[in-house]
């Protein structure tokens, strides 16, 4: 018997999303300047950089929350200069947030169920009834949600309001909600922030499994370099809104510009 091959085993294919020459400014502040990179189908792509490098801005541009002043985004072969968040969502982009953004009073189950709402087609009137097509649809969706609950091993908190859950589990529920959309591209904004070692390892395992099991393409921002180097297939490095490196974890690790950006350089 042979030990499993590494996580990079997923077939990495064509370009799923590419960002070309994108710039974003807030008044006089340049958050992102002339950045270009691509994300290929099936890969785990990390975006790293020191604080204020423009990583989260980049994610927000990808899922249409920010409109860049310049440049274009091509998603699934369709180029557009501006994308609205709902277009991104319908198009198959889901995300999690740096600070958990769940409905705190709702149970874990309901939160994940909320992720399915885009996929529910029966109108309001059918939904009022306890029988008929809307009920049937709900059962189908619940089944998918239960599969996600099983996948993330959160059966024990199905009925717990998420506000009562520890932080690590809330992050997991949030990942569940994003997965419920069955996204083609999953954006994770610091999925391991504030976690202890064990939670980080669990979460890494889930990210790899999502990539492997559902074939989901993943773009993630992360500060823990160990995690980034272990998980990702390719890494893009931003510093002060400018792309300074792009390549495999090993290439990036040894890049002088990256080392300078992280450790500082004598002027």
């Amino acid at each position, binding site marked *: *018997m042979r*030990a499993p091959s590494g996580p990079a085993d997923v077939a990495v294919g064509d370009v799923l999303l590419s960002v070309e020459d994108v710039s974003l400014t807030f008044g006089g502040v340049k958050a992102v300047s002339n950045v270009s990179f691509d994300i290929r189908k099936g890969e785990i792509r990390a975006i790293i950089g020191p604080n204020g490098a423009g990583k989260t801005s980049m994610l927000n541009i990808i899922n249409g929350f920010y409109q860049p002043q310049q440049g274009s985004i091509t998603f699934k072969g369709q180029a557009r200069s501006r994308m609205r968040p709902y277009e991104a969502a319908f198009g198959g982009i889901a995300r999690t947030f740096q600070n958990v953004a769940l409905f705190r009073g709702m149970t874990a189950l309901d939160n994940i169920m909320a992720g399915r709402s885009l996929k529910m087609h029966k109108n309001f009137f059918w939904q009022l009834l306890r029988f008929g097509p809307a009920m049937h649809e709900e059962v189908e969706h619940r089944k998918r949600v239960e599969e996600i*609950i*099983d*996948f993330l091993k959160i059966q024990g908190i199905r009925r717990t309001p998420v506000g009562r859950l520890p932080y690590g589990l809330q992050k997991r529920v949030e990942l569940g909600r994003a997965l419920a959309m069955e996204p083609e591209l999953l954006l994770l904004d610091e999925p391991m922030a504030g976690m202890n070692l064990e939670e980080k390892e669990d979460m890494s395992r889930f990210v790899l*499994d999502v990539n492997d*099991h559902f074939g989901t393409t993943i773009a993630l921002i992360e500060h823990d370099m160990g995690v980034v180097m272990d998980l990702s297939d390719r890494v893009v490095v931003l510093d002060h809104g400018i792309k300074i490196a792009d390549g495999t974890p090993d290439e990036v690790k040894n890049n002088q510009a990256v080392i300078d950006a992280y450790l500082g350089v004598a002027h």
Partner: protein
Amino acid sequence: MATNAAALADTFPKLLIRNAKLYGSRPSMRHKDLGIWQTWTWAEALEIVRAYAVGLSRLGLKRGETIAIVGGNRPKMYWSVMAAQMLGAVPVPVYADAVADELAFVLAHAETRYAAVEDQEQVDKIMSVMDRLPKLHEMVYDEKRGLRDYDHTHLHPMEEVIEDGRKALLDDPSAAPWLDEQIAAGKGSDPSIILYTSGTTGTSKGVVMTNARSIKAATDTVEFDHLTVDDVALAYLPLAWVGDHYLNYCQGLVAGFCTACPESADTVMQDLREIGPTFYFAPPRTLEALLTSVMIRMEDAGFLKRKMFHYFIGVARKYGDRILNGERVSPIGRLLYWLGDVFVYGPLKNVLGLTRVRVAYTAGEAVGPDLFAFYRSIGLNLKQLYGQTEAFLYLTAHRDGEIYSDTVGPTFPNVEIRLSESGEVQFKSPGMFTGYFKDDEKTAEVLTPDGFVRTGDAGVFDEKTGHLRIIDRAKDVGKLNDGTLFPPKYIENKLKFFPNIREAVAYGDKRDFVAVMLNIDLTAVGSWAERNNVVYGSYQELAQHPLVYDMIAEHVAEVNRSLAADKVMAGAQIKRFLILHKELDADDGELTRTQKVRRGFIADRYEPLITALYDGSSEADIATEVTFEDGRKGLIKARVKIRDMKTEPTARPMEKAA
């Protein structure tokens, strides 16, 4: 009558066939999957197990070979045991949370050529020690996730093995008769399972059971507790532990009752509530955790509810146990208890999932009298049993209506018990093991010349009731330098009965006085800290907090008072104690997998602390290596405080003065 028929079947596969015939449409197994309870009848179980057995034999599993079973309580894991037994192979269950090293030891010692495991975690663990397991050939697994990219030449999903067997049974007309032959060829004297002991005393030993003896023992207990096909049990304790194998697997097959498997280890409490078992086993530790959580939640309840709860729990303490034992109780007492049942005990049992429980057992460790009385007082028929793996569990058990918290009950029917001169309990029982696997020397050590088994436990028969009382491990009972009797476990248990104390380790053998090291219970003490505005950042900080020391000192003083009241024990009062900076953990080898303290190991590991306990210093530094769940190691350093205790005047003050 079920039990008579059971006597006719001398192997477990034959019992399975009998159950499929007699109770074909009754549930044999339930498991919650994707949030919905799935049920398999006895007839369905037989069909699956037959297909599985053929599938396994097509992978090469043969009569007499061993197959490791590593995983949690899931139907497929139980069926793996059944399928192996059907072929005359011997299943060897291993604790699912065992670290790779322990796993390697058992698999290598049992010479397993096959392993049936639950998921990727177990596959990875076994693969990491592959070089120590040259014999291991094929692995089957239940949960597919994460395993897709693994090399599947010697790795097979159980589903496919079962499907393969099913196809073979359909396509090949000789397959079914061949399997019937295999089942018929199974004899009562064949080994049915090898259970590795948890290793309280050194490395674990493989206890070999036979079909006929196991069935005989289970038939006795099924009769004793009137278990029938209508009963339901929730299997939530480790598969590799004799208790789970006996209570759920063996009794389930003998009585034909339904065994329910929880959705996951985290959902046991909810599953318990949904299934509503009628037969329930819980180690004292679980009962304690349950009570602690109830008490903590009651502290947060509204004024009216809290008052009502405490009032009626008071009523229950007064009358509950007597009503359960069928003693005479005044009409007013009965009325109050009835009201309490409507308002408090009923709903409480419902929340805990204990409403339908007819027979509940606890065993494994001494149970606190308050804890025991609490559950009995709210109407749960909780009893104690005493036994061990070598006996195939039961040696003594409480009879309904004759229950005392400080005894483990009278000798079980068909069991012989005697006490040796040194007070050691020795037995002969119907389910008795045939020997340790590949270890004649150890087997000879525990057997007396006339065929009794030495338990290693020191016990006494209570004069009034005739019940057995276990004091300690026979070899652990020591003496202080002044000759006073020192039973460490007895003292530790007295300490552990306080909810704030999770673990205690007592020292005193060949020493001048008794000293203890304690672990606080994070749930209980944490909640106390919250209510008393004690701020803490970590377990270590909480454990070393002076107010926590004060509180624990009161508990120790109380233990000293109760020891002083007992003439024999009065000299063994605790003179010094400390609270450890970290929780004792099985991963660090400080506890066994069944959560018993390994006193000798702890003494070596915390040597500086022991020295400090006896040299009079008021604090000591300690650095210990800890193992994280993934096997990585780290270092914890701490300064631990030591507290002196006043001892109570002993029963013989005059002699001491002289």
